[in-house]
């Protein structure tokens, strides 16, 4: 069938076998398109397994700059025999499927509404390369070569990327370039190149970078001045600490002596990881721990302690699919409620919701400032999609004038001048007391305790004294609502009075949905929440919109529940739009939900 012309607006999906080294080929492919100036996003769908199971990489090319999944597949590269049937089925009508024609697959690969192209990748590589491992690895580069021809990619850009990728292993450069040449030449000689689905150079990626959220978060921790990192490895947060260590090795290690201006401790479990963080912040270091849902569950006891004893802590929760162990390598936003209210008793925590890697960087810095200012744990709620996939975002920027907000910490001179120090007095009326650090001055000594204490820090079981403290903590919560990042609100000039609320990595899907709805004549406003407590602007958005769709990636509408509990918005005004299968959300879900409501509304 004739193919639709899809210049700079299509999706390539690559079906691979886990452990065959396809990641660098796929990432190189995506980066080549990015360097040609065309916006692009990549999603890795991988199993919780070392090797052998199916894995997919999806690249969306979008001149319009849409970064969410689109829900379609225009070019499928089917390299995994186990998933041929599914992969064939997933190709959108008019699309193209590329497969390794070394072995006949005719019966499986029959579909009249798509174009099927066979490239003898294995045969070509077997003839050219000697070692078994090289042959497997180079098959991936060979399909990159074929795609260079079919998609009309700039070959010099691809070759430059190969040079950079294998800069530390010069011998690999030649082999990879050869493999690319194999695929390229075969495609040029065999097919009509390029396809109607192709890339044309643009200038839409200037000032942008491609980075994953975990790396950006780690950079934020470095730039905020965190010196103590404690953790227990858990997918998908592990790379936060890997990156932090790597940046610290580079920036905070004396090249002469090897001495380190940081201390990373791999704890025995998450209980210890958060304990180490609290011990460090009690002593005035900036400290953090990256984790995921199961780890957050284990940290709950200490998080409640830190809330009540008023100790700063930064926890980076890169959410994955729950409940329980769930699906460790799939994405969700299902820790919202457990993070907000982690631990027993009247406890609540400040949450930050980054929506893209640049915000991971910025909000990581903000998390440390807020934790110190408010003397309380701050949980940065990222997720697997944001944390582990490469996202296109604005370049990270740094203000050299930045100085950490260490909050109300009395130094030796202030303590010397003070008549007396009492830990939990609300001197300034903002609910935030003053604290001291061990070892600084004899007058600063006090007891940190999770048991009932009065405003002087002394143990108490007196009802009035206890309530005085917890009421002040509520006042502090009010201060927090003023200090946390405000939402990003996008209003449409022709608004219908309907709104969408979302947080975190749902953002690209909602942004695209808002545009697509506008194309259909439906005009909705959008409030992207960046923090909990919600603050006045969120309250106002809810007050001023008669119907609000809350888009989130979990089954139980946790963000909606939190909005219901923590704002005055009537429950009936909020409508949940939910996505929770473990893959990143796409715009279609949001568009359909609003359209459906519209039809029902009109009918009513």
């Amino acid at each position, binding site marked *: 069938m004739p193919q639709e012309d899809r210049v700079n607006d299509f999706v390539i999906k690559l079906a691979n076998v886990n452990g065959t080294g396809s990641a660098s080929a796929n990432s190189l492919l995506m980066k080549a398109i990015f360097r040609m100036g065309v916006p692009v996003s990549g999603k890795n769908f991988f199993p919780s397994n070392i090797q052998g199971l199916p894995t997919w990489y999806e690249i969306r090319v979008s001149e319009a700059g849409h970064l969410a999944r689109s829900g379609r597949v225009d070019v499928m590269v089917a390299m995994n025999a186990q998933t041929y049937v599914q992969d064939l089925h997933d190709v959108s009508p008019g699309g193209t499927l590329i497969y390794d024609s070394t072995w006949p697959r005719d019966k499986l690969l029959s579909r009249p509404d798509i174009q099927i192209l066979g490239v003898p990748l294995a045969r070509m590589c077997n003839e050219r390369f000697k070692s078994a491992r090289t042959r497997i690895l180079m098959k991936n580069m060979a399909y990159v070569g074929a795609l260079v021809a079919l998609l009309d990619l700039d070959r010099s850009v691809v070759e430059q990327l190969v040079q950079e990728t294998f800069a530390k292993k010069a011998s690999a450069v030649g082999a990879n370039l050869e493999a690319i040449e194999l695929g390229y030449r075969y495609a040029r000689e065999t097919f009509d190149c390029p396809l109607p689905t192709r890339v044309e150079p643009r200038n839409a990626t200037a000032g942008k970078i491609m980075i994953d959220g975990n790396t950006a978060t780690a950079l934020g921790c470095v730039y905020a001045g965190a010196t103590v990192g404690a953790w227990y490895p858990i997918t998908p947060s592990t790379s936060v600490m890997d990156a932090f260590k790597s940046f610290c090795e580079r*920036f905070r290690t004396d090249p002469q002596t090897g001495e380190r201006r940081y201390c990373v401790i791999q704890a025995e479990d998450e209980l210890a990881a958060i304990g180490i963080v609290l011990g460090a912040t009690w002593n005035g270091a900036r400290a953090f721990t990256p984790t995921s849902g199961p780890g957050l569950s284990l940290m709950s006891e200490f998080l409640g302690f830190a809330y009540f004893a008023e100790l700063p802590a930064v926890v980076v929760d890169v959410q994955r699919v729950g409940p329980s162990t769930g699906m460790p390598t799939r994405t969700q936003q299902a820790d919202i409620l457990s993070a907000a209210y982690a631990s027993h008793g009247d406890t609540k925590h400040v949450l930050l919701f980054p929506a893209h890697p640049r915000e991971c960087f910025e909000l990581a810095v903000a998390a440390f400032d807020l934790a110190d200012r408010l003397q309380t744990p701050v949980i940065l709620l990222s997720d697997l999609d944001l944390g582990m996939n490469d996202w296109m975002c604005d370049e990270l*920027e740094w203000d050299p004038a930045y100085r950490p907000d260490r909050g109300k910490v009395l130094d030796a001179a202030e303590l010397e001048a003070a008549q007396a120090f009492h830990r939990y007095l609300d001197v300034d009326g903002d609910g935030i007391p003053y604290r001291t650090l061990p070892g600084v001055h004899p007058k600063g000594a006090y007891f940190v305790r999770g048991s009932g204490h009065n405003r002087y820090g002394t143990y108490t079981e007196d009802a009035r004294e206890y309530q005085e403290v917890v009421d002040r903590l509520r006042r502090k919560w009010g201060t927090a609502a003023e200090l946390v990042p405000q939402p990003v609100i996008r209003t449409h000039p022709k608004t219908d009075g309907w709104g969408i609320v979302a947080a975190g990595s749902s953002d690209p899907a909602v942004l695209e949905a808002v545009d697509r709805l506008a194309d259909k004549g439906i005009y909705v406003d959008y409030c992207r929440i960046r923090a909990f407590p919600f603050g006045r602007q969120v309250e106002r958005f809810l007050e001023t919109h008669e119907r609000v769709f809350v888009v989130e990636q979990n089954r139980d509408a946790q963000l909606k529940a939190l909005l219901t509990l923590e704002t005055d918005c009537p429950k009936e005004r909020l409508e949940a739009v939910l996505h929770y299968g473990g893959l990143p959300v796409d715009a279609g879900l949001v568009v359909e939900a609003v359209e459906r409501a519209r039809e029902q509304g009109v009918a009513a």
Partner: protein
Amino acid sequence: MTSIAKPKIVHAGLRRNGLGLTIRDYEGGMSTLCAGCGHDSITAAIVQAFFELDVPPHRVAKMSGIGCSSKTPAYFLGASHGFNAVHGRMPSIATGACAANRELYLIGVSGDGDSLSIGLGQFAHAVRRNLDMLYVIENNGVYGLTKGQFSASADVGSKAKRGEENRQPPIDPVQMAMALGGTFVARGFSGDKEQLVPLIKAGLQHRGFALLDVLSPCVTFNDHEDSTKSYAYTRAYRRAVVHADFIPSRQPITAEYAEGEVLSVELHDGSRVLLRKVSKDYNPNNRGAAIDYIRARHRAGEIVTGLLYMAEGDPDLHGVNKTVATPLNELPFDMLCPGRDALAALQSRFR
């Protein structure tokens, strides 16, 4: 934890230490533990040790978990920073404290319930990391706050106050610490302050993890004739195999210690620990032999006390991590933040 403020009465003739402080300056609140509790004797020994070491109280961080023992930091060094953590998790707080500020004196006080059940993992890893701290276990074989259940250190055959017999083998923190590579392992008895004070002083000055397991009878729930953690049993079956003398760096070593009988170990600050062997069969430098000896004596119903094993020079947490000498919490921000230009340069790899 509860405590009652103690009136500070300083007699004019009270001895002052090198800082000009009296022993009263090292005391804390009044104890609310049972009269006769072994823990109070340990508290007194801690007070004396810090006083004699001339440690400024505000340079000490004292930590504990949950339980009777964990209340005791309220009763010593009232002018020190305290941290009463959650059950069994004091070691991780100590780890973070040590990571942030390597110059503080860290003392953790825990119990057999706190350290050997819920906190066994954190205890083990603190030993393994050779965390620079003194870790005191006030060991009475029983849960006092919840009224008399066996703890994990209760011996097989020992009976609870109500008559129930313990059939599970005990966990001995001393043997565990030795097996885990502990670099300072000692056992004392709350009723023997003369032995206890030098052990505390030596433990505080040791660079690395110093475990001091102190048998500390619970007068309310475990001080009866069927208990192996009672005053009577401990007095009868205790065998001090090594006596430790602690000599601060500023004092000369007198000639009364003859070479051969005494092993002199120099600590990082120039202080010395003199180990006098009381039992000829015991070797405090041989980890394997020491464990064998302790086990053999335990089978015979005896409790071996003293500084049971000591090794100087093994890297502590900071040694392993190669941390800079300046405490991390004192590093200026400019030494931590790579700055704008570095960020810009770094991003070339993200394009």
